């Protein structure tokens, strides 16, 4: 019995699924959510702490945020927010038991990453130009 290592049937595993839009949106929801949970939580606290600490401390915060790496973090966080926002709305639809039809589910899942990029671009366009 111990020596017999015959190939036994396996249950469907991550490795044999064809990658799809719903899986992409699902893992993006986790990555953006947990990314914001750490980076965004710390940055929000630092921002408010800087403001509470007076103009000189806040100037230091602003100098970091207006450097190239500050913009990378801020643009990244805003994209993460909009991606998590739209995939979170998807979860509310799924929570009420709707949107599980394969066609509709795939279609909406495929749209969301583009929607989040468009929302991020729109947000920064308003910040910079308006």
């Amino acid at each position, binding site marked *: 019995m111990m020596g017999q290592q015959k190939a036994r049937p396996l249950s469907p595993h991550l490795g044999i699924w064809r990658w799809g839009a719903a899986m992409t949106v699902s893992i993006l929801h*986790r990555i953006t*959510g*947990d990314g*914001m*949970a*750490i980076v*965004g*939580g*710390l940055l*929000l*606290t630092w921002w*408010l*702490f800087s*403001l*509470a600490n*007076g*103009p000189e401390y*806040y*100037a230091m915060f*602003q100098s970091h945020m207006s450097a190239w790496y500050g913009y990378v973090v801020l643009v990244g966080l805003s994209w993460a*927010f909009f991606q998590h*926002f739209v995939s*979170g709305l998807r979860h*509310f639809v799924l*929570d009420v038991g709707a949107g599980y039809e394969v066609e509709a589910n795939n279609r909406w899942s495929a749209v969301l990453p583009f929607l989040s990029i468009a929302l991020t671009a729109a*947000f920064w366009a*308003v*910040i910079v130009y*308006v």
Partner: protein
Amino acid sequence: MGSGTHLGKVRGLGSARHGAHHWLIQRVTAIGNILLFTWFLLSLTQLGSFDYDTVTAWLSSPVSAVLMMLLCISAFWHLRLGLQVLIEDYIHDHGTKFGVIILLNIYAIGCGTFAVFSVAKIAFTGAAS
């Protein structure tokens, strides 16, 4: 728990004895985040400038200060629940999991309180300094 109704199991007493509480509060704080972050991002687009005087003047108004405090509470509560799921999914050793959950609580409750206190200080004294 074999004899309970499905609803009864979900409400209070699944195997973990917490029922759907975690799931439900994650949704409640998600709705809070939708409302509060919509206000926050719209406010950022309306500020015009991010200099110290402009931002503290904005945060010193009672409505802004209260909404920002609520945002901090809702966001840190939500992220605590989300990171807890991440930890439970990927850390399987009970001792390590316990330690990391403690660190998560220190982070979420600590930073959340710190952020709320900062808003209070800005609202009560910030505009003057």
